[in-house]
């Protein structure tokens, strides 16, 4: 992260938690990881104040710390990722509301402000005692919020008091949040930096020498895999490995216990945020809100799970893109795909389980998949979908291309024997025929889709033994539209003799495409279309000499230069000098332009951080101007009676400021969308 990013983080911390914390945070950012005495020296704070500030920061996960077991020295380190995500609080709350209801949004906003919290404390904060009747919603109490919460009630429009909370509803909400993985358990590793975690993990797992492997390299690879697994398990709070190691120590006991408790399958547990450890009950699969007993363990400590929020934000972004690039109906289907895949996607970053990517196909099939049937069940109404695709009059469609190669071959044989029912030419023949009589095939005449549908002549499923299912076909068609899009929204696994048709999303390719798209979008709107053209050429063709660039881009040399130079100046593209001989004479040097997406991305990100920081600064400046009025307006005796206490001018100023503030924050949120797209997805 760069300086503007640091400035931005400091500003955010300052805005949210005040001056003391931001001062410490800034010192940690500027001078890096350090111990308390060093920090005291840097910040000129008293021991007590610094301790206090640090404890707040640690509570918020804004500062990571680690006490080394060797010298017992505690070192603190700023956590920029969490600091940055402060800007997303609003989005988080909205997402939580959408996922688990309005109340969930409130619980989440509390959790956001508290960093992490014990379930018991959270419940208590809403003023509901353990003893209250839980089955009787009517007998619920009006919970007077505790001090800490009332301080934030302004965030939720002061409506906190009006809510009716029952113990049950709080627990249910928390459960829902847990299940949606929006909140997760806190693990000690969450307080440590990645490097520290790695050191700790390496201490725990067996040394490389202990693995049974032929070569040193294999040993290292095995060791690495185990370390990664450990880290991942810490991150997602799945204790399986820990258990296993312990079980191994215990030997046979394990088998015994397994039989006794019938622990669910490994895979299942892996994705379940509610392992037994979470709720403190052993032996049974957890069901949210079991009658009377389904409360969460009040000692359970929860925090906001940023990774999952990023996934959800990414889903929204993807659906939005599909909407813009394809159509609204298709985007609807895509949203359902993403929802269905949801529980299987924990993190935007693709885990590099096997860094040596041998075969892309194999890797793809390792991704979470879903079958057409899953979606057909999930989507209830397809009437509108069927009419949302264009068809031709003659209904000649080439659906065979989506079949499994083997099946395609079989159909060919069919046609050779003259047994094809619908008399359709074999796909290969069609392909050949396609070019020659293309004139016929292309028709500009918009057809009545029902008619084309009714013909069913083209349906590949019309083979004997297949029932026509318009609902299923409509959905499948939209899925295929997504799959053939150059953005590769979806990956299609054709039906095979053993497996049903499957779909998956190859996120790494998709996100690469989207990042590229976003960068070029930025370039287009900043430098113009020809600049985007040049950049794309450089991307496609690699390093290119100006002459060739000129002739490929069909731009006059002067025009081209007038676009290249600003692009270069803005750091979007690079220029490499390749001397033709030792003289280093510019005349005897080739100049090659190139576009490095990574570099460009870093540059755009940095600029975005800086822009966000500028916006926040400006928001402050605007705030300063009306500071007096705002303070007056937020006095307890003035609230609600603004018209009485405030003059017309003051009211006007207040409104103008509110508009501006909204506008600036709106912009910051748009900027954050960009950061999310480029950095997090």
């Amino acid at each position, binding site marked *: 992260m760069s300086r503007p990013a640091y*400035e931005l983080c400091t500003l955010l911390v300052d805005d949210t938690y005040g001056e003391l914390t931001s001062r410490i945070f800034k010192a940690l950012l500027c001078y890096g990881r350090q111990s308390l005495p060093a920090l005291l020296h840097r910040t000129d704070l008293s021991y007590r104040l610094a301790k206090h500030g640090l404890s707040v920061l640690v509570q918020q996960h804004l500062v990571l710390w680690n006490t080394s077991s060797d010298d017992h020295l505690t070192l603190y380190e700023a956590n920029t990722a969490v600091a940055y995500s402060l800007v997303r609080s609003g989005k988080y709350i909205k997402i939580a509301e959408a996922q688990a209801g309005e109340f969930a949004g409130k619980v989440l906003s509390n959790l956001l402000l508290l960093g992490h919290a014990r379930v018991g404390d959270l419940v208590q904060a809403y003023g509901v005692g353990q003893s209250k009747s839980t089955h009787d919603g009517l007998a619920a109490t009006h919970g007077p919020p505790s001090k800490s919460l009332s301080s934030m009630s302004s965030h939720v429009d002061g409506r906190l008091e009006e809510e009716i909370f029952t113990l049950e509803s709080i627990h249910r909400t928390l459960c829902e949040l847990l299940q949606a993985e929006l909140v997760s358990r806190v693990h000690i590793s969450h307080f440590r930096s990645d490097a520290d975690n790695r050191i700790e993990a390496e201490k725990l797992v067996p040394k490389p020498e202990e693995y049974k492997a032929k070569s040193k390299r294999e040993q290292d690879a095995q060791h690495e895999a185990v370390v990664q697994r450990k880290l991942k398990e810490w991150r997602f709070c799945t204790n399986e490995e820990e258990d296993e190691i312990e079980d191994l120590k215990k030997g046979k006991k394990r088998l015994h216990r397994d039989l006794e408790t019938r622990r669910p399958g490994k895979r299942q547990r892996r994705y379940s945020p509610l392992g037994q450890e979470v709720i403190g009950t052993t032996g049974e699969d957890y069901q949210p809100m079991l009658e009377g007993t389904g409360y969460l363990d009040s000692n359970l400590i929860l925090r906001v799970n940023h990774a999952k929020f990023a996934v959800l934000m990414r889903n929204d972004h993807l659906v939005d893109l599909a909407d813009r690039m394809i159509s609204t109906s298709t985007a609807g289907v895509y949203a359902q795909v993403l929802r269905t895949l949801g529980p299987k996607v924990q993190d935007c970053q693709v885990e590099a389980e096997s860094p040596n990517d041998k075969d892309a196909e194999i890797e793809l099939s390792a991704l979470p998949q879903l079958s057409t049937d899953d979606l057909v069940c999930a989507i209830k109404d397809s009437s509108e979908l069927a009419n949302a695709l264009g068809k031709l009059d003659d209904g000649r469609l080439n659906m065979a291309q989506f079949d499994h190669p083997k099946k395609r071959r079989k159909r060919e044989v069919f046609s050779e024997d003259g047994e094809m029912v619908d008399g359709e030419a074999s796909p290969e023949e069609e392909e050949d025929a396609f070019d020659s009589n293309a004139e016929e095939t*292309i028709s500009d005449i918009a057809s009545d889709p029902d008619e084309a549908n009714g013909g069913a002549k083209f349906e590949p499923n019309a083979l004997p033994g297949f029932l026509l299912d318009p609902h299923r076909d409509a959905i499948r068609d939209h899925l295929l539209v997504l799959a053939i899009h150059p953005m590769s929204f979806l990956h299609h696994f054709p039906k095979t003799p053993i497996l049903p048709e499957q779909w998956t999303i190859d996120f790494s390719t998709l996100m690469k495409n989207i990042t590229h798209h976003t960068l070029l979008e*930025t370039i287009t*709107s900043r430098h113009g279309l020809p600049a985007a053209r040049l950049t794309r050429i450089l991307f496609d063709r690699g390093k290119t000499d100006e002459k060739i660039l000129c002739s490929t881009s069909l731009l006059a040399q002067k025009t081209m230069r007038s676009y290249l130079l600003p692009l270069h100046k803005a750091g979007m593209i690079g220029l490499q000098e390749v001397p033709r001989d030792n003289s280093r004479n510019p005349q005897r040097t080739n100049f090659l332009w190139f576009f490095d997406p990574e570099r460009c991305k870093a540059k755009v990100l940095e600029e975005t951080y800086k*822009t966000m920081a500028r916006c926040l600064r400006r928001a402050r400046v605007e705030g300063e101007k009306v500071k007096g009025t705002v303070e007056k307006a937020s006095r307890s005796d003035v609230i609600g009676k603004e018209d009485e206490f405030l003059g017309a001018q003051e009211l006007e100023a207040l409104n103008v400021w509110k508009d501006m503030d909204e506008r600036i924050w709106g912009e910051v949120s748009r900027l954050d969308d960009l950061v999310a797209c480029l950095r997090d997805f």
Partner: protein
Amino acid sequence: MASSTEEVPAKDEDITMTEPSGVSSPKELRNALYARCASFEEGHIFDQYELFAFDIIPDNSVEQLQAYTKQLAKDGLFKLMTKDGKACWKVVKRADAIKYRSLSQDEALVYSYIEGAAREGIWSKLLRNKTNLHMTTMNRAVKSLENKNMIKAVKIVKYPNRKTYMLAKLQPSENVTGGPFYTDGTLDEEFVHQMSFWTERYIIGRSWWHPPLPEHKKKSSSKMTQGQAEELRAAELRQRGPGRDRSKAMLPMHPGYRGYPTLSEVTRAINGSGLSGVTMKESEMEQLLDILCWDGRLERIRHGKAYRAVKQVDGEDGVELGNGLTESPCGRCPVFEFCEEGGPVNAKSCEYFQEWLQF
């Protein structure tokens, strides 16, 4: 690019040759030899044995052949060349030979190199290197050749600053002119724009489903003959131009749709449209389609075999513009780099922001 007038003298020779001649003077023999060679296709290279095979040289004597070819070369009618160290010859047209004869030695040298470069042309610097003439001598020769209308200067698209020459009667090759997108060595931007505009509309019309327009009459669903269909389409084209505009209401085609235009289809369509005076080649159209792809207006589909229009396009006449960064004042700020808290340019005193906030 031989003009037909030059063929005439060659024909004359044919007539003389057909006369049977018992004993011939060396001149007649020379002429006969020349005529025989000229009847071959232009640029054919003859070696010694081929010439003997004509059975014109008495007794196939090497000395005689040598004498004749020497004289012919002197007259400029034969060009002596070597191949694998052996002598061989090329025929020069009589009209050219006359021209040659009128040239000075330097001019002839320069001319021969320019001629050698054919339709590609030769760069003056290279010409000087090859002829090994002094700058002024060469310039003089070039000037006089130009005045005699035997060579011309052309502009090479790739190197517009290089003085390049070629024979006056030749049409510069496409490497030199840069193809149909260039006129006189400069890019014809208007033409490129026109062509890409048309192409884009054509592809838009064929790659998305445009929900029926209100005035659209339902066509009879019975199969029509190809002629009918074409007529119908022609009528539509006349009505609405080659394609349809990009719109938000466009719907995707069915995944099995096979009508996404391919390169050859687009080429055929554009040549059929009469938009361009010259016939476009596929390679040229590919260049144009590539440009449209790089502009983010088209995308390749079906493994790059066919093209489809991009539904939503940014920029220029684009509907949606950019993202959070490009729409904020700082994203377009000229002093962005210097803007810093406490610096001479900062967010507090920023006017761009003021403007933006008031919009």
